[in-house]
């Protein structure tokens, strides 16, 4: 509206503060942006987080290592299964535990399925912020199938507590593998429908292309990781660049998009889903027989020391620093969560966007408040 009414016309305009959130439909949780607005244009934005802070790092110091494992699924609750992976890797480094091969494969399968589910949520919720409810149901129906699979292996649909120190919780149930193939087929079909419906839609493209462009240099400066970084033209992916688990045995491409705008941040996730589906299929083919869990004492006392492990979670680098003092409880647990750093770019890129573009921008960053606030 600022195009139409200016100070020069003799009309006095006034900036006002809009608290977007913490209770707002499109802030994807209890995120709050304190916006200074001139009509529909954002003049400045400030992140206000912490509404979901549960003091998990402090909590970890009072419970044992094994007891803390389920807590780790609670941070990024959209990608619950992937979260304990970094924690378990850090513990395994700390205690020099060798994870059985089959367990590594199972971790990759479940982890990539969870990544698919998480990216589907992102695709659905970004179009929902454009008021497109129909594509949202398409991807959420696809996610339902994957949630069923995760439920079959772990017992829970959302907070998938499958990874444990030294391996995984349980072996695959009877007849699970054909179900995975079927679910992936139908998911990819729905995804193609979704792609045709949304990616070429003129309104969608017009509202996302060239909006909030983050260059590769800026992305590195601001510590953005994960798919949001790969949308800026970089092919940085810990699965490829610093392969943990058995990712070096899988044949996959790191997807990236060149422009770094909201559209690329959306589309790179769509490409990653297809790549993850490929990985799951390969891992299922290569799946060896054997143990699913290394022998770890019930009361586990790692030697004093510290370990740091980082994985490529659904939203970026998830890192855990675990410091042990030789007792059953960790001395200090620090977690590096991807969403927490990724939202740092919002104040830098918000000025000049309209409110609608701002909503599209924060949706394209794909943050989860549990991951930010911990």
């Amino acid at each position, binding site marked *: *509206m600022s195009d139409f009414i200016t100070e020069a016309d003799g009309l006095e305009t006034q900036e006002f503060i809009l608290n977007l959130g913490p209770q707002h439909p499109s802030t994807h949780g209890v995120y709050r942006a304190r916006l200074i607005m001139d009509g529909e244009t954002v003049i400045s934005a400030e992140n206000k987080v912490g509404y979901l802070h549960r003091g998990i790092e402090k909590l970890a110091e009072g419970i044992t290592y094994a007891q803390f494992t389920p807590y780790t699924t609670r941070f990024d609750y959209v990608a619950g299964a992937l979260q304990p992976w970094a924690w378990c890797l850090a513990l395994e480094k700390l205690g020099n535990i060798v994870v059985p091969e089959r367990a590594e494969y199972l971790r990759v399968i479940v982890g990539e399925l969870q990544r698919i589910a998480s990216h589907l949520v992102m695709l659905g919720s970004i179009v929902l912020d454009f008021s497109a409810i129909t594509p949202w149901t398409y991807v959420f129906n696809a996610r339902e199938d994957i949630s069923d699979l995760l439920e079959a292996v772990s017992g829970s649909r959302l907070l998938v507590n499958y990874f444990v120190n030294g391996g995984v919780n349980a072996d695959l149930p009877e007849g699970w593998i054909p179900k995975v193939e079927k679910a992936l087929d139908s998911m990819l079909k729905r995804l193609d429908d979704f792609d045709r419906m949304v990616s070429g839609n003129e309104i969608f493209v017009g509202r996302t292309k060239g909006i909030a462009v983050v260059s590769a240099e800026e992305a590195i400066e601001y510590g953005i990781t994960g798919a949001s970084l790969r949308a800026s033209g970089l092919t940085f992916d810990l699965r490829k660049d610093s392969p943990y688990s058995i990712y070096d045995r899988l044949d996959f491409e790191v997807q990236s998009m060149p422009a770094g705008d909201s559209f690329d941040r959306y589309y790179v996730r769509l490409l990653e889903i297809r790549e993850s589906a490929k990985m799951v299929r390969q891992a299922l083919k290569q799946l060896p027989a054997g143990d699913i869990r290394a022998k770890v004492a019930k009361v586990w006392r790692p030697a004093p020391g510290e370990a740091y492990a980082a994985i490529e979670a659904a939203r970026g680098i998830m890192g855990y620093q675990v410091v042990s003092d030789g007792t059953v409880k960790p001395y200090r647990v620090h977690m590096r969560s991807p969403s927490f750093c990724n939202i740092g770019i919002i104040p830098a890129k918000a000025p000049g966007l309209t409110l609608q573009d701002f909503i599209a921008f924060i949706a394209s960053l794909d943050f989860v408040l549990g991951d930010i606030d911990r």
Partner: protein
Amino acid sequence: MVGFLTTIFNWAQGILGLPATSLADALPWWDILWAFIYFVGAVILLIINVIMLIWIERRAAGFFQERVGPNRVGPLGLLQTVNDTIKLLGKEWIMPAAADKLIYLIAPLLIVTISVTMYGLLPYGPGITPVTLNVGILFFLAISSVNTLSVLMAGWGSNNKYSLLGGMRTVAQIISYEIPMALSIIGIVMITGSLDLGTIASSQAHVWNVFIQPVAFVIFVISALAELTKSPFDMTEAEQEFVAGYHTEYSGIRFTLFFMGEYANLFSMSALGVVLFFGGANGPFLPPWVWFIGKTYVFILFMLWIRWTFLRIRVDKMMKFNWKVLIPISLANLLLTGVGIKIWQAATGAIKW
């Protein structure tokens, strides 16, 4: 129907022992009673329509979206809306402490009043036009723009930033899109030579206006979507940006009134489209009012289809589209129509050069 009512009147006269002159001719309250009957009829039609429309919208959306939709309350979930309405009626009325009370309370009443008024203008068939105005179309457009006022009142009165922004957007949007809409209708008025809705409808007995004025029809549909603030122009209550837009602070029966007004307008705007472009109540075999309602519902389903398929456009692009695309095209269409009418008149010998 008139005969039936006259019989009732005559019967009433007999009971009351009044002189056996025709009351219908003698007393002015015959007109008042008719007005009252039409009013009640319009309200009943409005309520039934809203209930049906909400049900259709939810069921249709369900089929579009790979889900079932309401299917528990009543056969096929038909009573779901009734259920929801009762629930809404029972809800607490919450008024923001800092609201502008008078404006806040009037706004929902105004929106429903306008909808009922618009229902009274529609030609449901030959002989069932509640109010026949020779400037019907003009009056229709004028009264429908009062909707803007009620939305702005709701937005301003709520004293909420989201409501105010939603209200302001609506004013800009509806006022802008009224221009191409009026321009697209003028072409039809020129062809028909009448502003009366009934005359426009009956003039299409042989060929519908949609075939004569296809460009005007497209412009009409786009601006009708914008006028109704339906997707892709649902800026008013863009829940992803403004939580619920102008009715964020409304609850209970007041929210229901807004909801009713929205769906009632959807029906009346679609009915206007049917009158202008699809021959109104004209049609073979079935009674005219069945044709009218049927055509209107097809038009509504078309709008719902658009709603469930499209994303929301950005507000500044929407305004640019209106001023830079729609209005020039509709003006050009008007010019073409004028030239076309003159050529037609010359060809048929109506005018001599």
